[in-house]
């Protein structure tokens, strides 16, 4: 008999399993991938003190702790449906059905695609795909690549691709087109990047970051952005050039760049083809939340959290009895926040089930505070107003709870 089923063996799911198993609960984790760790696996970046955050090692530590406590992890399993029953949750997978009184969805996030013409050619991949190839499989994405999309993720993974021995010709924006307004608007991107300027390796970005908080200054920033770009990890990052299309017959051969106006419109006659054999598209992340929708939980659109998010409270309870969420499904944040949220979800389940007694309740309160503290201390914020988004979500939760109590 399983007490808790967890979908996703990433930082949130593994941390939650540890909290539940510590209180004697029988936990089973289901994950589609070949290795446990989720998005932790690809991560490799330097902390401000110079030490490396090696996601593979972090995943191994969590996996080791979980298995030692008797957590059962099944890999290569896809969950395609969940249904509430009188005694809990029924979970339908590619390898049979499971049932448990408690279900935690820790499915993480997915990447927004940016459909630049030519994006279906072999050799074009999401930036996360290149990260997994390079760091997890230890296979080069290619010889010489180009990154389309300027954001926290692309700046971080650019360095990982270089460490893996591939070359990068440039990091540019996609040319402005329908549906990708904000990621193709140099002014908006400049604003977003200014909030992570403290991480930027270039002194220019550091200086610029302090001044480009306002729209007017942002457009000036784009105008004064050096025509040749600035170097990030030695790779030219250019906000005045954008990718118009990806060229190739049967695979990527080059990327056509054009100079753009401050609003991101390509300037005719300025096109040039840059030869590359792979292209990484970086459109940012959104919560991967289909299963919460299938489970019948209400959603709210919270841009500060990266998209449509299942309504939940700070204890990671949803509005469905026995259903919990944690990690990036609740909003896009870094792995350390996801781990802390996972601990909260696990303790919540232990407390609600009675398995944890009063102690789990006390630990839970402390764990909730810990999430806030880790968020505050975090250097990398995918969305600058994430704390505001979290407050909004807490209000949605209370509103819906109140209205349900008033009209049962």
């Amino acid at each position: 008999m399983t007490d808790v089923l967890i979908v996703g063996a990433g930082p949130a799911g593994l941390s939650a399993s540890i909290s539940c198993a510590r209180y004697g609960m029988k936990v089973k984790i289901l994950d589609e991938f070949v290795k446990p760790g989720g998005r932790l696996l690809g991560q490799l970046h330097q902390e401000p003190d110079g030490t490396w955050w090696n996601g593979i090692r972090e995943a191994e530590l969590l996996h080791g702790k979980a298995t030692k406590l008797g957590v059962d992890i099944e890999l290569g399993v896809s969950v395609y449906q969940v249904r509430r029953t009188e005694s809990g949750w029924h979970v339908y997978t590619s390898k049979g059905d499971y049932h448990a009184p408690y279900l935690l969805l820790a499915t993480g996030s997915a990447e927004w695609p940016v459909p630049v013409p030519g994006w279906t050619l072999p050799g074009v991949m999401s930036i996360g795909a290149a990260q997994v190839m390079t760091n997890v499989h230890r296979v080069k994405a290619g010889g010489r690549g180009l990154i389309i999309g300027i954001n926290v993720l692309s700046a971080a993974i650019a360095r990982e691709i270089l460490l893996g021995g591939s070359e990068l010709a440039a990091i540019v924006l996609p040319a402005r087109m329908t549906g990708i307004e904000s990621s193709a608007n140099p002014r908006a991107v400049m604003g977003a990047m200014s909030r992570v300027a403290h991480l930027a390796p270039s002194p220019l970005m550091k200086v610029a970051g302090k001044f480009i908080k306002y729209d007017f200054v942002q457009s000036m920033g784009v105008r004064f952005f050096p025509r040749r770009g600035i170097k990030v990890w030695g790779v030219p990052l250019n906000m005045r050039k954008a990718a118009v299309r990806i060229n190739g017959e049967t695979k990527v051969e080059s990327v056509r760049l054009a100079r753009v106006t401050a609003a991101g419109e390509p300037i005719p006659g300025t096109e040039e083809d840059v030869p590359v054999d792979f292209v990484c598209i970086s459109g940012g992340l959104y919560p991967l939340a289909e299963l919460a929708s299938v489970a019948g939980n209400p959603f709210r659109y919270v841009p500060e959290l990266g998209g449509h998010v299942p309504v939940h409270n700070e204890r990671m309870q949803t509005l469905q009895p026995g259903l919990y969420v944690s990690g990036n499904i609740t909003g896009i944040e870094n792995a350390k926040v996801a781990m802390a949220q996972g601990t909260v979800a696990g303790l919540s389940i232990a407390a609600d089930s009675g398995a944890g007694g009063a102690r789990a309740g006390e630990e839970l309160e402390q764990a909730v505070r810990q999430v806030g503290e880790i968020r505050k201390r975090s250097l990398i914020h995918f969305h600058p107003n994430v704390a505001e988004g979290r407050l909004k979500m807490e209000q949605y939760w209370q509103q819906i709870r109140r209205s349900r109590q008033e009209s049962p």
Partner: protein
Amino acid sequence: MGFGRIEHHPVLGPLASRKEIRFTFDGRPFIGYEGETIAAALLASGVRTLRVHEDSGAPRGIYCNIGHCYECRVQVDGQANVRACLTPIREGMDVRSGRVLPKPFAKENGWT
């Protein structure tokens, strides 16, 4: 030309030695290593095109590499629509790229 495994990584260290696995892709023999996915083993050997679009015949490879997009669907030991990015290679595995499918009713439905 830029393909291959990252044997020595400046931070992650040397690649551990693993067991060789033999498999075929469209009948051609390939060698990969235990634990590698079909997509990773093929890319390491320089293969980017995993299938053709069932309608247009346009070549396709991996896109997301973590199972979300289904762009890397291949046929494995007769089973269609298997994600190459999530499926580890096995000894003797028969991987096929698929082909353009017939559209017997396209004309009368005005789809051509």
